[in-house]
């Protein structure tokens, strides 16, 4: 990504949301902007409408669990299909209360992505029209991609210490 494109994007956010940006970095030629969690939806909406950015395609949104920091990272990746520019916006939520407003008001595609993120990480999206599990069985009681839960199915009997060192 060209330096002037980067600067233009950061400038667009800073002009309206001063002090919201915590950190900006280029990771594998991918502009990553870490923001404070409160105004994330407003920032995305602003980037959607502003003529200089027009990030009108939501590539993906997902979460990352950081057990050492007791935090869940929420990541939004946006794409401008006209200029072919991409950015990544990142916020951090406390593990005790991972709550963030829904993005479904701006992108209908966020509906299933947010359900998936809830399903695997337990992130609660306020205002989501149908926040329930999407991929896992409905009676599952854990959020399987959080690090405190083991990957393995605990009912397995044929893998004992003798053979597999469990």
């Amino acid at each position, binding site marked *: 990504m060209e330096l002037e494109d980067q600067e233009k994007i950061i400038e667009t956010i800073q002009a309206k949301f001063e002090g919201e940006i915590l950190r900006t970095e280029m990771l594998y030629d991918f502009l990553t902007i870490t923001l404070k969690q409160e105004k994330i939806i407003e920032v995305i909406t602003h980037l959607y409408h502003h003529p200089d950015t027009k990030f009108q395609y939501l590539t993906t949104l997902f979460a990352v669990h950081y057990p050492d920091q007791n935090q869940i990272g929420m990541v939004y990746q946006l794409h401008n299909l006209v200029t072919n520019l991409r950015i990544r916006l990142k916020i951090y939520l406390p593990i005790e209360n991972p709550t963030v407003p829904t993005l479904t008001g701006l992108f209908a595609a966020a509906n299933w992505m947010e359900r998936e993120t809830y399903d695997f990480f337990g992130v609660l999206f306020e205002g989501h029209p149908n926040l329930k599990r999407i*991929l*896992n*069985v409905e009676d*599952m009681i*854990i959020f*399987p991609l959080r690090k405190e*839960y083991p*990957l*393995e*199915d605990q*009912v*397995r009997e*044929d*893998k004992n210490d003798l053979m597999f060192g469990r």
Partner: protein
Amino acid sequence: MEATTASGIKLGTKPEGVEGPGFFATSLEKVVGMARKNSIWPLPFATSCCGIEFMATMGAHYDLARFGSERLSFSPRQADLLMVMGTIAKKMGPVLRQVYEQMAEPRWVLSVGACASSGGIFDTYSVLQGIDRIIPVDVYVPGCPPRPEQIIDGVMKIQKLVETESLRRRDSDEYKALLNKYGIA
């Protein structure tokens, strides 16, 4: 005793019985068992690579039709044998169970491959650790995936069960208790 016709076709063995000029007497159970054994309609429930091996088993080279299983039934209502081939995710569990419940008695289940039998390499939160957690299984075929010869061997073991099964088995208390254990009425 196995007999061979003039054109070289091998005939199957006769069941035990009393033979005389113009008649042959045996028990009904043996006749029914022989008929069932050689006309099993399998329902293939194929979800992954074991299903590909099954396709080879049904193909001209291995040809499961030689064992009287020419006709696959894609409706559980007409099927005798449920062949489960592949990884069954926990979300697929209720579907498999419903398919089993829709089959009419007598019904048999063949679990093909490591995943269907035990979860296989997929020791993970989303995969059912063996289909015998939700439905009763008659024969397990090991392998990852098993070769067609192994699947045929499993089918032949099912044939043996079908042939020798008592006509009253499905009415027995043991069988009802088995189904009850799985919560199938």
